[in-house]
C-alpha cells in the first residue's frame, strides 16, 4: 500500500503526516484528526452525512481521497462554532427543530452553509434543491427548510464559513459580509 505525506488544514489547524493513498477524506477527518462530527451514512455517495467544505466548496468527504486534499483547507461542523457560539445555520437548526437523531445534521449544516455562501436569500425551492444531496430520515425536511430560512435572515453562512473562503485569498463574495473579529485568522495555505 503506497503512502503519501500530506499537509491538510482542518478548521484552521494544520496537520501533517503520512497516510495511505486509499484513505478516504471522511476517515481521515474522523480517525486521523479525531473530528467525529462528520458522519458516514452510506457507501454510494448518496446521503451527504459526510459533507464538509473543501477549499470553499461543499464536498461529500466519502468521495474524496485524503491525499487529494493535500495542501487544502477543510472546514467541518466542529469549525463552525467560533468561540462556542453557534453559527447562524447551527442556531437556525436549534431554533426551528431542524434535527432529531442528529446524524445527518453536521452534513446538512455544512450543505446549508455552502448554499448560503452561494445564495444569501434562497427561496423554498432553492433551499430544497440546495440540500437535495443530503438525506434525512427523521425530520421530513420541512423544519430543515425553516432552519435554513432562519439562518438566511439571521446572519447567513456565518463567520467561520466566510473566513474559510476568504482565508484562501478568494475575493469577498459580498463586501457587506461580516468581517472576522475576535478570532485568529486562518493560516493561508498554498493551493
Amino acid at each position, binding site marked *: 500500500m503506497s503512502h503519501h505525506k500530506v499537509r491538510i488544514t482542518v478548521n484552521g489547524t494544520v496537520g501533517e503526516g503520512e497516510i495511505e493513498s486509499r484513505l478516504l477524506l471522511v476517515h481521515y477527518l*474522523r480517525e486521523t484528526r479525531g473530528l467525529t462530527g462528520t458522519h458516514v451514512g452510506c457507501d454510494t455517495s448518496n446521503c451527504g452525512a459526510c459533507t464538509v467544505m473543501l477549499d470553499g466548496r461543499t464536498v461529500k468527504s466519502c468521495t474524496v481521497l485524503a491525499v487529494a486534499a493535500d495542501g487544502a483547507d477543510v472546514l467541518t461542523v466542529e469549525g463552525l462554532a467560533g468561540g462556542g457560539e453557534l453559527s447562524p445555520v447551527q442556531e437556525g437548526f436549534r431554533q426551528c427543530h431542524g434535527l432529531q437523531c442528529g446524524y445527518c445534521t453536521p452534513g446538512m449544516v455544512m450543505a446549508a452553509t455552502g448554499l448560503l455562501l452561494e445564495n444569501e436569500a434562497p427561496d423554498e425551492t432553492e433551499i430544497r434543491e440546495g440540500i437535495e444531496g*443530503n438525506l434525512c430520515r427523521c*425530520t421530513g*425536511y420541512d423544519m430543515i427548510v*425553516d432552519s435554513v430560512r432562519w439562518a438566511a435572515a439571521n446572519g447567513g453562512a456565518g463567520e467561520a464559513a466566510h473566513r474559510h473562503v476568504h482565508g484562501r485569498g478568494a475575493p469577498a463574495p459580498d463586501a457587506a459580509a461580516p468581517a472576522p473579529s475576535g478570532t485568529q485568522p486562518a493560516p493561508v495555505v498554498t493551493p
Partner: protein
Amino acid sequence: MTTHAADTTPMGFGSMRRKEDARFLRGKGRYLDDIVLPGMLHAAILRSPHAHARIVSVDTSAAEAHPKVTAVITGETLTGLGLAWMPTLSHDVQAVLATDKVRFQGQEVAFVVAEDRYAARDALALIEVEYEPLPAVVDATRALDPDAPVIRDDLHKTDNHIFDWEAGDAAATDEVFATADVVAECDLLYPRCHPAPMETCGSIASMDPVSGKLTVYTTTQAPHAHRTVYALVAGIPEHKIQVIAPDIGGGFGNKVGIYPGYVCAVVGSIVTGRPVKWVEDRSENLMSTSFARDYHMHGEIAATKDGTLLGVRVKVLADHGAFNNTAQPSKMPAGLFHVFSGSYDLKAAHCAVTGVYTDKCPGGVAYACSFRITEAVYLIERLVDVLARDQGWDPAELRMRNLVRPEQFPYRTALGWEYDSGNYPQTLRKALDLAGYAELRREQAERRARGELMGIGVSFFTEAVGAGPRKHMDILGLGMADGAELRVHPTGKAVLRLSCMTQGQGHQTTFAQIVAEELGISPDDIEVVQGDTDQTPFGLGTYGSRSTPVSGAATAMVARKVRERARIVASAMLEVAPSDLEFAKGRFHVKGDPAASATMAEIAMAAHSDLELPEGVEGHLDATCVYNPPNLTYPCGAYVCVVDVDPGTGQVAVRRFVAVDDCGVRINPMIVEGQIHGGLADGIGMALMEVLAFDADGNHLGASFMDYLLPTALECPSWELGETVTPSPHHPIGAKGVGESATVGSPPAVVNAVLDAIGVRDADMPLTPAQVWRSMQGRPLRTDVAVT
C-alpha cells in the same frame, strides 16, 4: 409550516427547544463509530453471495496470514463455543455464522478482526468459501408449494411453513358477509421495505479478562433486553455485562434485535483479549438487518347498500425470510395486526395469517410499524377506498359515516381491543376542513376535464401503542413494564433514569418536562439518563411508540412518589399535617395561607438535612417505580393527500399533505410535530419509491442507496398539520404515543390519492413512475420480485 418554540423554558408541558441539540449541532454527539477504546481492533464480515447454498469448505489460512489480521472467526469457531446459532425474539433460532448452508444473500459467513478497518476489509477477499448452490425460494406465494426447496433443514422441517395464527370470530364474520348487500375485495401487497436509519448498526465489545466483565457499546433500542439475551446466550451473568447505547443515529425499529455482528464482536473480544469494533456499511444494513412489512394480503370488506360497514375478512401470507426473528410480543406472531378493524364500528372481523420462510434476510417488524399496524391500517384504509370506488361513494363520507362515535369509548372492537378514547368525527372533520376537501373535489373535476391527473387520498387510522400490559405482552418472557428512578439532589436539581432509549425522539427534553410538570423543577435542571444498563432501571426499551405510554407514565408516577415524600418533608418544615398542604407550581403551601410555603428546592435541602421527620420516613428525595400499563394507548389521525400525476411519465408529485393527529396531551408540541413530519416522509418513501426486490435467484436488488430510494427534500411537500386533543383516560398525564402514527397512517393516503388520480382500482406500492404508468395501461408490476 411549523410553529416554533417559545424562547423561554416552560415549567412543564409546552414547546421548548431541545436539550440534546447543543452537542449534535457542534458535531459533539457520541455515536457508536465515534468511540475509540484503547487497543481497539476493527472487524468486517464476509457475506454470502448466494441466496441458498450448501457450504462445502471455508479456508481462512490466507486471511490469517495477513500481517494486520488478528483473528478470523468462522461458524466452526462458534460451534466450538456453542454460539453458532442464537435464539430470536420469535422463538426461532438464527445462524450467527453459517455452518451448514447459507439461506439468504448477504448472510454472515466469517468474521475478520484486524488492526484497522481497511485491513479487515482487505482480508475478506482472502477467505475462500466453496459453495454448492441450491435452488432458492424467492416468491413467498410459492414457498408452500410441495416441490419448494426446504430452507430450514436444520429444524428437520419438511416444508417452509412457520406458523398459522388467527384472530376474531370466523363464523360471525362469515355470517356478516353472507348477509351483506355489497362486498369488495382485493389483493394487497405491502412490499418489503427497510427502515434504513442514517446510522447503520454496529457494536464494540470489550471483555475484561481480569474482572470477567463484558462491556458492549451498541446501537440498541432495548439495552436491558440485550443484556439479558447476552447473559442467556453467552452464559455470562448479567451483573458482569454492561450494555451501553450511546447516541443513536435513528433506529426506526432497525435496532431492536441482536444481529450476528454483535455476537461476533463479543466472541472477537474474548478471542483476542482486546476491544473489537464492528460497524456495518449501508449495503450490509439493507441486505442483512431487519426489513419491514412483506405482507401479501387478500382483504374483503362487507357493507349494506346504504354504506354501513359490517365486517372485514383477511388472509395474510407473511414472508419472514430465512429465520423468524420478527420482533413481537411472544403470544402474537403477527404482532398487533388484529387492530385491522381500524377506526370503524364493525360487527365482525377475522384474520388468518400464515408465516413462511423464504431465502431472504429475516425481520418483518420494523420501520415504525407498531408491531404490524402499518399493514393493518394499510389494509383497512385501502379496502374502504376500494369499496367506495366500486360503489361510487365519496371515500371521506364513507369513513365519516362509519367511524366509532365518541360516546362509544372505551370501545371494544370486534377483535377484542379496548380503544381508550377518541373523537374521530371531530378529527376527520378538522382534516377535511384544513384541506378544503369539497373545494379540492371541485378543482379535481375541473382539472380532469382538462385532461390533468389530480388525486385526493384520505386515510383515517387508529394506532395501538404502548406495549404493553405484562399479562398479555412479553418479549422472550420479559413482561413489557418499564422502570423509572428519580433522585432530587440537595440543591433541588434532579436526575431521572429510564429504561427506554431515545434515537432522536427527544426524550432528554420531554421526560425532563414531565418531571417539571409534576414537581416544578425546571427541565434545564433535570438530567435524563438512558442507555446504560449499569445506571438505569430495567425495562424493554423504545420501539412501538411505547416510550410516552409506558416510560412516560413511569416518570409521572415516580415524580408523584417523590412529591408525596416532599409533602411529608414540607409538613415537618411548616409544622402542619401533610393533609393541610396543597401543591401548586413547584411549592407546597398551607391551605388558606399561601405565604406559608416551601419550594421544591427548599424541601430538597431539608430532606437531606437534620430536620426531624416522622417515624419511618427515610429522608432524602428519591423514588423508583415500575409501570405496568393497564392498556395500550390509541392515538388516531386523519390524513388528506393531494397529488398530481404526469400523464406521460407516471411521475407522482405530492402537492399537499394535511395531517391531523390526536395523541392526547402533547408534552412538547414542537417535538410531536417533528415526529409527525418524519413519519409523513416515510409514507412518501414507502408509497412512491422504497422497495427491497429480488430476482429469481434471490439476488438482492435494493442493496444500496443507488437502488433503495429514500425521499429527499424535493419529494416532500411542506406538511400541513392540525391537532385534536383527546387524552388517554388511563394514562397518568393523558398522553398517548405518536412517533409511529404518521408512518402508519400516511402510506394509504398517498396510495389512495395516486389511484384516485389515475382512475385505477388497485396497484401495489411503490408507485414508481414505471408502476403508475403500467397501471394506467392495465398492467401493474409485481414489486416484490423483479419482473422483466
